[in-house]
């Protein structure tokens, strides 16, 4: 596998008055899987298309293994791409689709079909090789698309929301399969998605984009626990924003003081950013500091929505076993479990 590193340096791209990428920078290491995550219109797909050569940046440089490929046309970039819509060629059989990239590289028919069967075997579809693509399910079609993108041993694999059109269970299975293949082949991969669970589940690092810039790129763990900005904190996972007071680096929430990780004011009113699993809810023996609005049972865990006396809605995620007595309307005591919290300006 001829996997290589990828660098995007100061990429800017506009569509009319809309700024899709604003001085965008990204580094992807050899064999690494990096996901670009963000809301619709944040520029993540544009970044991917610039890498593929399907869009040309207004300024900036695209480097593969430190070689500038900014002006190399798409068909000469040697990048495998899987699209959101099933992009298979309807006039070709499954094996012909997979062998297409090798055919374009003038590889002999015998060799390319052998390679196609190897890849189809890897994605578990060798038995379907003679069928036409419309005879396959959505998940199978995306597997074929993945095999086609990998068959010519691309330097970079580009995945443009490849799971978006699939059913929930198929999505989970296929994303695991993508990760398994990516790890076994060691292909440098850039994966664009708006689904944070997908991004967090299979990526080495996740880049969160907003308005054409990369807000933060980190491992899923760091991204979740130490978001670099209020946007990242709100976009990745669920985050409570609880009005609080900060004094001398300590923030007072639900009557107790917690160390504030400085992202906002030193003193005065702030919002404390706390994950639902960092808030405990207990039935109050006397007057509590909140009351339960709803309790949603989700199997092993339950989601408790509470409202404090000042009207703030607080969400807590707890093991179901400990939430049996938290009925809607009951008075409860909220408590922050973490020893430090992020704060942001009001």
């Amino acid at each position, binding site marked *: 596998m001829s996997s290589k590193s990828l660098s995007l340096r100061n990429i800017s791209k506009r569509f009319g008055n809309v700024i899709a990428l604003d001085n965008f920078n990204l580094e992807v290491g050899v064999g690494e899987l990096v996901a670009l995550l963000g809301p619709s219109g944040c520029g993540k797909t544009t970044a991917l298309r610039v890498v*593929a*050569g*399907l869009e040309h940046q207004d300024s900036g440089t695209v480097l593969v293994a430190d070689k500038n490929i900014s002006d190399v*046309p*798409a*068909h*000469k*970039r*040697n*990048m*495998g*791409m899987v*699209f959101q*819509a099933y*992009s*298979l*060629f*309807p*006039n*070709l059989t499954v094996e012909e689709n997979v062998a*297409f*990239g090798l*055919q*374009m*590289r003038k590889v002999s028919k015998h060799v390319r079909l052998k390679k196609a069967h190897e890849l189809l075997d890897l994605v578990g579809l060798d038995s379907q090789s003679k069928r*036409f*693509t*419309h*005879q396959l399910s959505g998940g199978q079609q995306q597997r074929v*698309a993945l095999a*086609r*993108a990998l068959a*010519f041993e691309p330097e970079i694999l*580009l995945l443009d929301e490849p799971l978006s059109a699939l059913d929930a269970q198929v999505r989970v299975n296929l994303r695991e399969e993508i990760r398994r293949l990516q790890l076994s082949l060691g292909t440098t991969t850039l994966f664009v998605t708006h689904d944070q669970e997908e991004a967090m589940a299979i990526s080495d690092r996740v880049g969160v984009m907003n308005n054409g810039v990369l807000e933060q790129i980190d491992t899923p763990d760091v991204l979740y626990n130490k978001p670099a900005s209020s946007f990242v904190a709100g976009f990745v996972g669920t985050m409570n924003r609880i009005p609080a007071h900060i004094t001398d680096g300590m923030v007072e929430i639900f009557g107790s003081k917690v160390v504030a990780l400085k992202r906002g004011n030193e003193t005065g009113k702030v919002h404390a950013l706390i994950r639902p699993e960092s808030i405990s809810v207990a039935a109050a023996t006397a007057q509590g500091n909140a009351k339960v609005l709803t309790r949603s049972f989700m199997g092993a865990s339950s989601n408790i929505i509470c409202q404090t006396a000042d009207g703030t809605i607080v969400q807590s995620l707890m093991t179901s076993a400990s939430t049996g007595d938290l009925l809607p309307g009951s008075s409860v005591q909220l408590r922050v479990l973490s020893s430090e919290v992020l704060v942001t300006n009001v």
Partner: protein
Amino acid sequence: MAKGIKIRFRPALAATLLILGFFVFVPMISAFEYSIRTPLTGGYGWTHYIWAVREEDFFHYILRSMWLAGVTVLITLFVLVPTLTWLHLSNSKVRGLIDGLSLLPLVIPVVAFAVGAQISFPEFVQNTVLELPFLYFVLALPYAFRSLDIGLNSIPLKTITEAARSAGANWLRTITTVIVPVIRGSVMATIALTFALSLGEYTLTVLLHWDTFPTWVTYVAQDNILGAIAISMMSLIIPFLILTVITLFVPERSTQGRK
């Protein structure tokens, strides 16, 4: 054919087919019947067909017309497939303009084309019969444009084009190995329409003083109307057979289930 398929009788459909059949097939059957009459004996026979194929000029002119029609088809495909692909991919407003312009040959009299060609074309172009395919192309444009346009509209063109390019296909190979095979039905319809229109074109050809099969048939009709009808019937059957053979030789690939 799967067992158990029943064709339901639909009165409205039957009536439509009957009316269409009346206007399409009755004149043809009548012409055929007329062409096999032998006035001398009062019966029927193949006299006029035998006379026609023995005519030296028959094959000369029909081959010439078919050759010109073939060149017209090539010009049509070479110009329209890349142009329409580009128009569809660029999503340009120019597409609407070109769509409108492609209809102009329907409203501009053929005589205007002929006069325009004689005035504007340089002499070396007017001296070659190859000026005809370019003008036939213009005459076939309204039909060829729409036929290909429908084909390109029916497929996810942007996605499969980008998939082909990212897999290593340049534009030429993307068009020849992906787009054209995927819209094979539209391409075949375009070939058939352009070929048929070019083969039967008379007015422009005669105004530009060229001799092709239709002008020769008109010439023959002055002396032998039954022979001319026999020739016309053959000119209908021969291209039909050729197009059928072409269709059979182009491998049928499955494109069902596409967008």
